């Protein structure tokens, strides 16, 4: 290897894969020069950077303002994953979307799905109790789990159960009676009727609390008794040790590794308790921890991450007027993840289950096609950087250079040997003259297109 990958750039590549949506080496070098502390601080404080206005996105993608279907909102989110200067809030929204899974398939209302996603984005780094209180008032969630049918005289347990099972403590930490008490405490929490869709399209809905439809009788929940309303229940939930472990495990799983490490999860759970349930504080400890820094390539990329990071490498959809944002976003569906439309309230099965025979084929085919295109902006830029200042490059160095460009990626030795042998390069590749560059660009694109076929590319 002739390219010495500095440890700082390599660590920055890891940070960007996990806390953002990946970055080319050119960006990593700039970030590494700024230093880890500064980059982490900026990631954790997205509020310091204004959100870009999205007038152009709406102007060039008329489908966004049509909002007849759910996929458009998914495309908007994909654009933000690729381009947001505040990537951690998009990343966290993706995590919470899997935890507090709501799907367009039932809500069938785009403005409502937008306000759900905005809620995840706006509160994702905040206080967990605040998040649960917002979640319980979100019209999409209310409709998704039938809260509008949870009446004082006819209790609907759906939300009450999932709040305990999937959104906080997890099974085994409460009884069926707790579920009933929880559901009763949320009676009367409903939403306003939306204006009919025709002739003017979809309208947002608002949270409504109906005092007269609330069960005001005494409830016993997790050993505490009182005339609890929904917020009281959430105040009790967030104090439970099981909730601390739950939040810690979710964050660990999303940011660190598919294999749980009980010690690391305990550490994060303690931060949850000590900080008064602040997600930002948990992430801060996490991003500085050895267990995070050492966990390179320990997570299977989710389809959204795989597509967004591939687009960032290929330099596609940087501009709102690029065609094809919607079909590109829809590629994640065949990989097992339709953004804003999870299969069930449980969200997606992640980790190993992102890889089955059909998903793997879709992942490889998508990334190989995008990165194997010599004309793609990003591929062309990375190729120029590889050739810059050189007359020729040895085959092994060329592979290293490609991996370095792709966010300081690493391959197992066996994989390297196979790629080099099948590529069959017999000598140094020339890249000095303009005349060399056509062949060089095609060759490098071919190599960029092969790397997504490796197992290693599936991991972040």
């Amino acid at each position: 290897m002739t390219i010495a990958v500095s440890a700082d750039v390599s660590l920055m590549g890891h940070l960007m894969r996990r806390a953002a949506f990946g970055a080319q080496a050119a960006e990593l070098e700039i970030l590494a020069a700024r230093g880890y502390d500064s980059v982490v601080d900026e990631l954790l404080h997205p509020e310091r950077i204004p959100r870009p206005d999205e007038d152009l996105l709406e102007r060039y993608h008329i489908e966004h303002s049509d909002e007849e279907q759910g996929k458009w909102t998914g495309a908007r989110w994909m654009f933000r994953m690729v381009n947001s200067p505040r990537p951690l809030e998009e990343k966290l929204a993706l995590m919470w979307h899997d935890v507090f899974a709501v799907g367009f398939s039932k809500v069938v209302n785009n403005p409502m799905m937008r306000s759900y996603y905005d809620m995840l984005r706006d509160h994702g780094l905040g206080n967990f109790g605040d998040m649960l209180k917002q979640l319980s008032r979100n019209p999409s969630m209310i409709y998704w789990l039938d809260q509008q049918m949870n009446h004082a005289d006819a209790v609907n347990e759906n939300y009450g159960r999932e709040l305990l099972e999937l959104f906080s403590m997890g099974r085994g930490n409460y009884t069926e009676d707790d579920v009933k008490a929880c559901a009763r405490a949320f009676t009367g929490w409903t939403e306003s009727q939306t204006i009919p869709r025709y002739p003017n399209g979809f309208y947002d809905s608002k949270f409504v609390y109906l005092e007269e439809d609330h069960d005001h009788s005494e409830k016993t929940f997790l050993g505490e008794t009182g005339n609890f309303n929904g917020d009281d229940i959430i105040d009790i939930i967030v104090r439970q040790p099981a909730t601390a472990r739950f939040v810690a495990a979710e964050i660990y799983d999303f940011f660190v590794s598919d294999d749980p490490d009980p010690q690391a999860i305990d550490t994060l759970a303690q931060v949850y308790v000590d900080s008064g349930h602040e997600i930002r504080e948990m992430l801060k400890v996490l991003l500085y921890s050895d267990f995070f820094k050492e966990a390179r390539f320990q997570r299977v990329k989710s389809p959204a991450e795989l597509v967004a990071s591939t687009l960032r490498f290929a330099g596609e959809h940087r501009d709102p007027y690029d065609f094809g944002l919607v079909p590109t976003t829809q590629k994640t569906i065949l990989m097992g993840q339709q953004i804003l439309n999870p299969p069930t309230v449980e969200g997606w099965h992640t980790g190993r289950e992102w890889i089955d025979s059909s998903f793997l084929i879709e992942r490889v085919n998508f990334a190989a096609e995008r990165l194997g295109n010599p004309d793609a902006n990003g591929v062309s830029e990375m190729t120029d950087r590889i050739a810059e200042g050189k007359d020729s490059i040895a085959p092994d160095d060329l592979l290293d250079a490609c991996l370095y460009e792709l966010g300081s990626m690493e391959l197992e030795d066996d994989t390297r040997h196979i790629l080099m042998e099948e590529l069959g390069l017999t000598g140094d590749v020339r890249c000095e003259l303009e005349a060399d560059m056509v062949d060089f660009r095609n060759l490098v694109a071919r190599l960029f297109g092969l790397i997504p076929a490796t197992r290693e590319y599936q991991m972040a």
Partner: protein
Amino acid sequence: MSGKNPVLVCLQLSGGNDYMSTVIPYGNPLYRDFRKTVGIPDDKVIPINDTYGFHPSMGPIKDLYDRGDVAIVSGIGYPDPDRSHFRSMDIWHTAQPSEISPEGWLGRTIREIDPDKRNVVTGVSFGTGLPRAMYLQGTPAISVSQLEGYGLLTSLAGEEQRTALNACTRMYAPVEFDEASMIMHHIKQTGRDAMTGADILRTAPPLYDSTIEYANNPLAQSLRGIAQVHLADVGTRIFYAQIGGFDVHGNQIATQATLWDTVSRAVADFFDDLKEHDAAEEVIMLIFTEFGRRVRDNGNGTDHGSGGGAFLIGEQIKGGMYADYPSLAPEKQLSGDLQASHDFRSLYATVLDQWVGVNPDPIVNGHFDQFDGLLRPLAA
């Protein structure tokens, strides 16, 4: 008889199908008491007899029933029912109610059928994602979202594609199991199976010719894909398809009607298709869901319950109603739910032993009594 191998198609209804509005106890006065708002009126029910009838959307299934091809198995469940979708579905997938298991019952079945892994398409699932039921570490099972155009690196051509596929063949070549990186091992095995499976399955669509026009919805298209692969005779013995949306806490009347319309038409089209190709007798279909729903409705729908029912469909099935319909009497209910009379593993064991022809005990984690006379084994 044909000497054909028996084939099992599993159809999963996700979300907890409400058994009481599928096989409706319309002749039981308690049904009206408990289902004041989501009850199906007598004149809409498709009667089976004076007491029970099919949901109004199930006409095509009733036709199959009248041919004697549908076994209705009531009161199926497991001890200490879990009302979580996910845990309950896991239990059905792993045949393991008492602990979390990563091994699917159909994964184990595939291993029994093909222990030497001679055919990676012994098990094929259609839809988005391989269900846990089909998963077993080390045993191949193919998941297909869409049969047409299925394959690796299809955007490449010629020498470039050959080189890339050669690299993939080598990168995903088998190695001894490496405990140190379970995930990388899993990706390797999946990649290898995917490549082989794609090569085999690609042969099916060009061979297929049928007069049946399946509906344009994911379930119907999945069953069409299953028909294509089955008719291509590539040795698939276990198929899987699924449809979701049965979690009808609200708006039950309309939702249930649409769902069962979709299921009934797709299933009937599927069997008609096989029949047209003289390939129906070797196929049975098991339709199941993770749980039934509460006996009493909640004003607009029904909440999670237990004690649902299952269906077996096929020419070799001896049609009729099996097992007693769970009692609706309040004192016979299990905290407001139907009380299951038979363990679902009895049904699995029956199918595995009497149809698939493998020893069910290690697959379903114990010895369970089987149903008698539910199906006629294929003659060898």
